[in-house]
């Protein structure tokens, strides 16, 4: 993609807080209509990147462009085009759902006659219409996030920045939320979001894996998986933790990750190592119920890149 076509262009931005280098030389470009995911453990720098994109935090160095507009030089031009939903969207809890929407609509200079119509439409899409008159403080966590999204979308932004929008939201609301995001993408809105959920990361069109303020890898989910060295075996059994420890240092094992009742074992050659691992576990008194080759998830890729401590 040519730089001038990018809806969001980030080149070599850095930001430090005192001695903490929160973001170091981060660059990426997002095409119009993409859903771009920032994935990384706590403290990786996701929020800092999004805040700089939103223009509430100035980078120490680097360049940021939204729709070709330099965010640092012309923030007033960039603001009407973008929308930023912080990790915890600021709703006025003493005001009703409708009052919150009207407030943000006026703040973003949505023309009077459009306010009602667009608010209505968004509320319907979010399934919040029956709660128009309820105080925002009395909504559930999931409904609050959806109301935040409605407020963030009221001025029809071209670029939507979402910081962990579904953290702490129940699965049903999360599904609704993603349905809205897909709908937005259809209408050409560019979305940059950060997430701690791996299943959510897989729904993005492209991902940047962040660690300690740096991008470790950036590609489509499929591209990232294809690029992972070696193959992945899932070992199931009654004592996954014991098996995890027993397999450390076995020949051909490049990485181990405990995933619930499975152990994910990254090996150089799946066909050759699967029987070896079974034998080695049996010799140590474990009886694995199955050992299968699987598709790696985003978490496996992270661990493959950075080791187990970087697990998001």
């Amino acid at each position, binding site marked *: 993609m040519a730089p001038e076509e990018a809806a969001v262009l980030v080149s070599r931005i850095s930001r430090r807080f005192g001695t903490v280098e929160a973001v170091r030389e981060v660059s990426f470009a997002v095409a119009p209509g993409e859903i771009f995911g920032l994935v990384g453990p706590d403290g990786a720098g996701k929020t800092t990147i999004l*805040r700089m994109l*939103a*223009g*509430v*935090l*100035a980078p120490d160095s680097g360049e940021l462009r939204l729709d070709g507009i330099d965010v640092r030089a012309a923030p*007033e031009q960039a*603001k*009407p085009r*973008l*929308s*930023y939903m*912080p*990790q*915890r*969207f*600021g*709703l*006025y*809890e*003493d*005001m009703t759902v409708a*009052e919150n929407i*009207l*407030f*943000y609509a*006026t*703040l*973003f*200079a949505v023309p009077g006659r459009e306010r009602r119509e667009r608010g209505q439409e968004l509320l319907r899409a979010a399934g919040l219409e029956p709660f128009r008159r309820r*105080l925002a403080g009395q909504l559930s966590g999931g409904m609050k996030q959806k109301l935040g999204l409605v*407020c963030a979308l009221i001025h029809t932004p071209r670029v939507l920045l979402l910081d962990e929008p579904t953290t702490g939201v129940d699965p049903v609301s999360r599904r609704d939320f993603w349905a809205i995001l897909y709908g937005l993408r259809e209408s050409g809105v560019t979305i940059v979001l950060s997430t701690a959920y791996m299943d959510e990361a897989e729904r993005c069109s492209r991902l940047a894996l962040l660690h300690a303020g740096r991008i470790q890898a950036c590609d489509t989910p499929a591209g990232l998986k294809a690029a992972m060295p070696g193959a992945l075996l899932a070992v199931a059994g009654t004592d996954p933790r014991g098996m995890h420890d027993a397999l450390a240092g076995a020949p051909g094992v490049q990485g181990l990750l405990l995933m619930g009742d499975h152990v994910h074992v990254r090996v150089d050659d799946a066909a050759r190592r699967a029987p070896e691992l079974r034998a080695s576990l049996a010799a140590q008194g474990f009886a694995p119920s199955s050992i299968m080759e699987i598709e790696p998830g985003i978490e496996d890729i992270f661990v493959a890149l950075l080791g187990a401590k970087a697990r998001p």
Partner: protein
Amino acid sequence: MFDRLQAMLMKEFLELRRDRWAMFRLVVPLLIQTLAFGYAATFTVRHVATALLDLDNSQASRGLISRFVATGRFNIVDVATRASEITRDLDSGRATAAIVIHAGFARDLANGQTAPLQVNVDGTNSNTALIALGYISQIVSLYESEHLPTIRPVSTMDAVPAVELSLAERPWFNPGIEDTWFFIPGIIGTITLIQVVSLTAFAIVREREVGTLEQIMVSPIRPVEFILGKTVPFFLIGLGDVALVTAFGVLWFHVPFVGNPLIMLLGASLFLLAALGLGLLLSTLSRTQQQAFALNFFLVNPLFILSGFAFPIAAMPAWLRWLTVINPLRYFLVVIRAVFLKGVGITVLWPDLSAMALLALALLGLSVLRFRKSLD
């Protein structure tokens, strides 16, 4: 611009209306503090426990004693017959003051000589004692001025004082003014300052804490619009405070209001702008409501002490006096007391009014500048 400001104001109004306790929190502490200050914080001392020893036992001495009793400020707890009883009364704490009229008082007074009157006060509560002493000297000098002309030829009047008191009176004691009159106008400034500074600081810090501030800042709103939206309601609340306490002082405590209400309005407006600037500045220095609370606490006390509300500025060491120069409350107290009690106008008050205008400008300017930076 106008739309966004209107939206901000509408929002503030809605939040205030939804907050069931808001009116209670705004008004009740105000009234309680006014009442507390109006009744308790006063230089007036009543019912001083007093022991009497009249060794002259003349018409003149009894006349003087009846004056003491008539004021209602002295409770005669003991009419002694010997000096040792007086000492005992003071030592045991039964009496705070003792008045001894020595033998020959009437004769000396009639002869135009120095008539001996001794006053002993219990120095452990020096404030009360000195105030009591002030009353005593006032009563005595009144008595003296009433009796002398008929007793003594006018020509010798400006010789030695007829009644000699053993202790001097406090220079600041000003028996001409009712103390409530002095205090109530002061309370208006002090309470309004406390309320407006803390309301402003807390309101903005709360938006920061809840996350709505960041949300608003990504909108095309300008910091000035946001600040106006946040401060106009508190400006109005502050004016309401001033009006309420003024009405209370005039109607309840019968403080005279002899000046021009428009000058009061001008002074109050300038003062409120400075207070809002201070509140804003506080909000840019605090990340959390706790921090704002602590800062507010540290700020309000010195402002109060260095205002001349209760402690005269002239009596402060030079470096403290310099600090009072940047205290808006100092100027407002001058304006408000002058408007209330003296009725003087702009011609006299313009230095104080300009000082407040300058402070307001500086504080608001500084806080708007800092406000931008504090968003990072």
